[in-house]
């Protein structure tokens, strides 16, 4: 009988220690993430801050790192962003409205469509690059142009936008729809005047997050031929480079000066993406409605 409380006490002691070690491991896990994030930001800023200047923003790239800038790349990234929004938002919202408001879930083709969208969201981006190379650049004979880049990025983020828009539409309560129907509205009127306005903040947030993801993509653009040396400002049907591609090209050079240049371009890129993300979060907090 004596041994039992003794064993129990011993067990409790051990499990207390196991609990502490375990909690320590959990903290370590979080620390791995945050320490790396910190080191990354420090590394980028320490190396790149001194070259974030007028040269970077207003000069074309050059083989001499001292006078090399990223103006064509920055402009192309902005063009890509605008084209992306123009392509993805109508297509994404259209598909989402169809799937949420019109599609009959029982039909096999609608279920197939859903699984399909989920799968597409997880296809490696480089595979989209191959698609762009085969169909847009070579197949359609579009060439290595900005439009091809924008189209391939559109395909890349479309599933993300569709999923976000569907969630926003699904969050609109049915009572709103029933109320509109009760007042004699047609299906079109319900969707266009009730459901869509109510889901705009969610859709906007999702689209901006998708945009910021697309603008950071490099691999598919390499394949559709975002030329690594472009000394002129981009046009929609002209050859182009983009900020991440420019960064890659600079990082890939062995000289330290180009790495520094890459770091300053990274600061600009992170600046653009963080602004977009912050804007999306602000939108969500500002207009989020609880039904």
């Amino acid at each position: 009988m004596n041994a039992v409380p003794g064993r129990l006490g011993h067990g409790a002691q051990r499990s207390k220690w196991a609990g502490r070690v375990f909690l320590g491991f959990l903290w370590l896990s979080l620390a791995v993430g945050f320490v790396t994030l910190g080191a990354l930001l420090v590394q980028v800023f320490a190396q790149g801050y001194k070259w974030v200047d007028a040269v970077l923003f207003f000069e074309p790239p050059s083989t001499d790192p001292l006078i090399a800038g990223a103006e064509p790349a920055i402009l192309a990234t902005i063009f890509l962003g605008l084209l992306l929004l123009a392509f993805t938002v109508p297509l994404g919202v259209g598909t989402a409205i169809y799937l949420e408001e019109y599609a009959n879930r029982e039909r096999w083709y609608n279920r197939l469509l859903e699984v399909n969208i989920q799968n597409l969201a997880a296809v490696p981006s480089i595979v989209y690059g191959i698609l762009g190379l085969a169909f847009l650049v070579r197949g359609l004979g579009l060439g290595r142009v900005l439009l091809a880049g924008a189209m391939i990025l559109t395909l890349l983020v479309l599933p993300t936008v569709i999923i976000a828009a569907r969630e926003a539409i699904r969050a609109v309560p049915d009572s709103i729809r029933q109320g509109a129907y009760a007042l004699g509205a047609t299906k079109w009127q319900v969707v266009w005047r009730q459901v869509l306005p109510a889901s705009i903040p969610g859709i906007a947030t999702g689209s901006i997050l998708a945009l910021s993801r697309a603008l950071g993509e490099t691999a598919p653009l390499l394949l559709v031929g975002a030329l690594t040396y472009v000394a002129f400002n981009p046009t929609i049907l002209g050859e182009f480079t983009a900020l991440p591609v420019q960064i890659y090209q600079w990082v890939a050079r062995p000289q330290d000066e180009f790495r520094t240049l890459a770091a300053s371009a990274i600061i600009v890129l992170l600046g653009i993406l963080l602004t977009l993300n912050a804007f999306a979060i602000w939108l969500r907090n500002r207009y989020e409605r609880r039904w």
Partner: protein
Amino acid sequence: MSVATTVGIVVALFLPAFEFFGEISIVDFITGTEWTPLFTPSSFGVLPLIAGTMLVVVCASLVCIPFGLGAAIYLSEYARARTRKFLKPALEILAGIPTVVYGYFALTFVTPRLQELGLPVGVFSALAAGLVMGVMLLPTVASVSEDAMAAVPRDLRDGAYALGSTKYQVATRIVVPAAISGIIASFVLAISRAVGETMIVLIAAGGQPNWSWNPLEAVQTMTAFIAATGQGDVPTGSVEYKTIFAVGATLFVMTLIMNLISIRLVRKYREVYE
């Protein structure tokens, strides 16, 4: 539209890939250990590329699986609501950083640190690329696993506490087993992303196909091969052009299988508790 994309991907990848296998035997492709498509005499064994990919993926998994799961358990079981509200988006910043930036970080920060530790790594190594990729995937594992753990009903935890369990015991013996299918789904998803990730390996793992299992050496992955070959002006219809599609098709099939597994697992745990 999305169906058209899928059909497009399949057609775009597999037609040239079939042409490729018309010229090169599929057996040689799958079992060969030499990958030198751009030299003469050329050799098309994909195994070195797959080995390179696997090496990087294993390094990445060693980081993202334990630490991602640890972060998920902390967020789900230990953190207070307010801490979680702050920590979760902060962790997700990691997932929003462009991969080209991680590549830069691996090359200019992680590799020199590894060298300082006395590891004989060169300028390019599978290890540096893999470690950084692991950190990049940490939020993926953390957030999908955390969703799975959040779906475990409170009653199960309360029952265990009522029997005198400690927090540690509840986390490891109740919550993790109950959410296991979602947790495994998060691992599969992360591994599939690691297989498909391009920029980090292109920048930091090197460009030498290498039939080796030593993570300190430079390797070339499937994605890095595609990117390195596709960015040049490869003539349409040449064998080199078709290798892009053959490797791309291999990559697509591998990630597709993993994604299907992951979607099925996620659905399974949803069915249990909702």
